[in-house]
């Protein structure tokens, strides 16, 4: 029987998963468009057309990243602290590459020389490519586990040999992240946002741009299916973590809400798939992932751009929750000290804080949803399409 606190911990997990999905669903296509603009657009006006497809809404979409980060901080402070300081340079590369996006969007059109605009095209590419790549790599590493443990007296967090005298700098740990398995996840994330970006742009453009995005969309959807399947098969062959509450934890309460609570974690090959045996309904997530990608291809071929975009949303939803279900209840497994792995049961905020955040989220999400819908509806009428001619006619007004 679950008590109120563990129900809240579970709901928080659902909330963060939802925020991650919305993040991928919105910022995902901004990343995709940002990566594609430089290559799909052959002339300056074509590139501007692609940029202006996402221009009116990129800023609001990026806030989902900030909300995701803040939710991590507020809901699982230990995970926030451990992941950001542990993955130090990985996080910083994400941050530094994200720097390039706001300025590329805002400053690119301010000066007309080819050099200036070419420079910002590349910045936009790297600002979109690197964050999503590393985000994927980090998620891949979650499955591999990370080398960390806690000091029993102060609960101070230690990553690898960090902080120990004469320790190697954290820069090395960035390179250690790039294992083949994790790289697969990184590439998968890139493909996912390319598919989503192409699906979004196909919905918003016409003429030559539309034709190009159509092709990219289908190719990426096929790659999505292949990589998604490959990741699933690979998971069967790597060690997975399994969590068993020990006898010490008689009930979930604040007094065991820390990583030294005596829970026992076992590691078996293919263990990451054990949740699907225990809770078969979870298979829904990977099925949605594949179905969505197939929808992208089928509906896209019928010329239904909106339908293909919806398919892409379904695929993203499936992928995000497949990741969540496979890891559940782990958030950050530890290889140095598996029993201290961070799970949703031992690293959450207190009951009061969780209640507060969840209530605010419950009130705000519908409000945000309604004004965001208003913004999209106003910016994109039924027949509004972006193309090179449109850019030319509004060249002083657009990005």
């Amino acid at each position, binding site marked *: 029987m679950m008590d109120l606190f563990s129900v809240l911990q579970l709901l928080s997990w659902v909330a963060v998963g939802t925020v991650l999905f919305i993040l991928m669903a919105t910022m995902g296509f901004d990343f995709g468009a940002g990566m594609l603009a430089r290559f799909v657009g052959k002339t300056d006006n074509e590139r501007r057309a692609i940029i202006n497809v996402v221009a009116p809404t990129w800023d609001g979409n990026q806030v989902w990243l900030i909300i995701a980060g803040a939710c991590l901080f507020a809901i699982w402070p230990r995970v926030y602290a451990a992941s950001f300081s542990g993955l*130090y340079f990985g996080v910083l590369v994400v941050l530094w590459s994200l720097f390039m996006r706001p300025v590329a969007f*805002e400053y690119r059109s301010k000066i007309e020389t080819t050099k200036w605009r070419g420079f910002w095209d590349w910045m936009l590419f790297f600002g979109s490519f690197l964050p999503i790549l590393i985000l994927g790599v980090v998620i891949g590493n979650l499955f591999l586990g990370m080398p960390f443990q806690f000091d029993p007296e102060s609960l101070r967090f230690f990553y690898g040999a960090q902080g120990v005298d004469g320790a190697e700098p954290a820069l090395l740990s960035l390179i250690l992240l790039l294992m083949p398995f994790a790289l697969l996840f990184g590439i998968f994330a890139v493909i996912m946002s390319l598919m989503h970006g192409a699906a979004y742009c196909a919905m918003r453009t016409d003429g030559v741009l539309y034709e190009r995005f159509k092709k990219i969309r289908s190719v990426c959807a096929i790659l999505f299916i292949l990589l998604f399947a490959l990741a699933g098969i690979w998971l069967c062959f790597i060690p997975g973590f399994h969590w068993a509450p020990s006898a010490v934890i008689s009930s979930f309460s604040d*007094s065991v809400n820390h990583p030294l609570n005596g829970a026992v974690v076992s590691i078996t090959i293919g263990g990451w798939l054990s949740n699907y045996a225990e809770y078969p309904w979870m298979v829904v997530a990977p099925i949605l992932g594949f179905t969505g990608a197939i929808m992208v291809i089928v509906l896209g071929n019928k010329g239904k751009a909106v339908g293909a975009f919806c398919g892409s949303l379904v695929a993203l939803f499936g992928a995000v929750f497949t990741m969540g279900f496979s890891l559940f209840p782990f958030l950050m497994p530890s290889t140095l000290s598996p029993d201290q792995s961070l799970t949703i049961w031992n690293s959450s905020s207190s009951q009061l804080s969780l209640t507060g955040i969840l209530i605010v989220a419950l009130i705000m999400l519908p409000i945000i949803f309604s004004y965001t819908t208003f913004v999209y509806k106003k910016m994109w009428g039924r027949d509004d399409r972006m193309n090179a001619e449109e850019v030319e006619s509004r060249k002083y007004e657009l990005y």
Partner: protein
Amino acid sequence: MLPSLLSVELAQFQFAFVALFHFVFVPLTLGLTWILFTMELMYVRTGKQVYKDMTRFWGKLLGINFAIGVLSGLTMEFSFGLNWAYYSQFVGDIFGTPLAIEGLVAFMLESAFVGLFFFGWNKLSKKQHLASTFCLAIGSSMSALLILVANGYMQVPVGGHFVWETMRMETTSLATLFMNPIAQIGFAHTVLAGYTTAAVFVIGISAFFLLKKRDMGFAKRSMAIGLGFGLVSSIMLMFMGDQQGLNAYHNQPLKLAAIEAEWTTQTPPANFNAITFPDQSEQKNNIEIQIPKVLGLLVTHSMETPVFGIKDILYNGYTRSDGVKVPAMTTQISQGAMAYDAMVKMRAGNESPTVRATFEKYKNDIGFGMLLMRYVPKGEPLSSATAKQIHEAATSSVPNVASIFWTFRVMVGLGVLMFLMIIVGLITTIRNTTWDKRWMLRGMLYMIPAPWIACLCGWFVTEHGRQPWTVYNILPTTLSASTLNAWDILATLILFILFYALLIGVEMFLMFKFARLGPSALHTNRYHFEKKNDANELGGK
């Protein structure tokens, strides 16, 4: 094992750098959005084209500023986890809540409508667009409110308690956390500083157009709005500054004493140190130029209440005006050490009631005990500290007096200067003579950097004055940092400086370019560089 002192100092320096950099862009956004709303309101009311052009031109400058505000704000959110991991897990339960709510309630609103502001002119009705501008403005101010709630917890930690099992602070009351008086006052002071900044910015650039005798109608109208907006905000700003002093006197007496370089308690009402050169190691001032009785009046609003001096707070203790006796810092440190040692035993499984009782008795001072961790050798209990070590820990808990003494005075001085400029500007504008007084227009132009310097000085006073704590009297800064190699922090610091230098370089280049260009940048064929005929400028509808 604790992070090395070098790595903590580098992390502190890095945080100061990225936070101050962020606040170069925040105040202008806070204020300019409301000025844009005012201009657009005039447009909707009067239907005159010039007001729409004003909104669009100043909006262009906002956009250039906004981009860097967004990216440097992202750094702030990442910074806590990167360099301040122990802080994040120690108070994340409390500190994270306002941050999460900020994203959901405020920042999303601001960012969703910024797109409509720039691209929605032809897609929305006049009133819908005005409403979008309003959402942009209110969103950014609400953002500031929630950030200041989070910051308020670091200054005056209310609404939480220490839980030894989870080894962190946990929320006891969300209402207390959000209603923290220092947060409310700090919020008002911060946004008003932003409003004044934007007003001085608009006044200064309008003065530039007037000096060049370009787009006169446009510039005069902009300046009038800037002056009016600036008058209201700078008066309220000074009032809130006074309130902030009053609050520091009650809640952070050591910080206040450091700002005023008050080493010993004077007989009330205390004299005000106008100019002095504080000597930190000797705990005294060299060359004091004082204004009699002013300090007492300013910070206590009374003739009888004393302003407690640093040495009394550290070594002797004092009695507050409400009768509460505050023990000396040295006493609090030794009590905190006992609480910490008891807690260590409890965490190791000791269930003895005497240990528990010691912990319960002194647990409110546990943060003071943690100050000793840098003085007592590792492995030994904190309560084994010698009187000398305790004295040393207390002495080092005074922020650098000279730096905050002077930055505070720069902030106040510039604030008063801006206020006077606005008053004089308003009087001459009412008399319709501002436009001919070139000395005055030049003064207005050169005043543009002043609000930024004042804002940054203000934050320096607030945050450096809080040292050696990250959370006042709860968590020492030297424990808050992540356990990182100092080289890593140095490397990232250098990269941050490099990236930010490039970004601000591009930003300033565009800002100057478009400010110089003026409303001609809009390509409406109504302004100076496109059309030499100024007379038609205001003829639009």
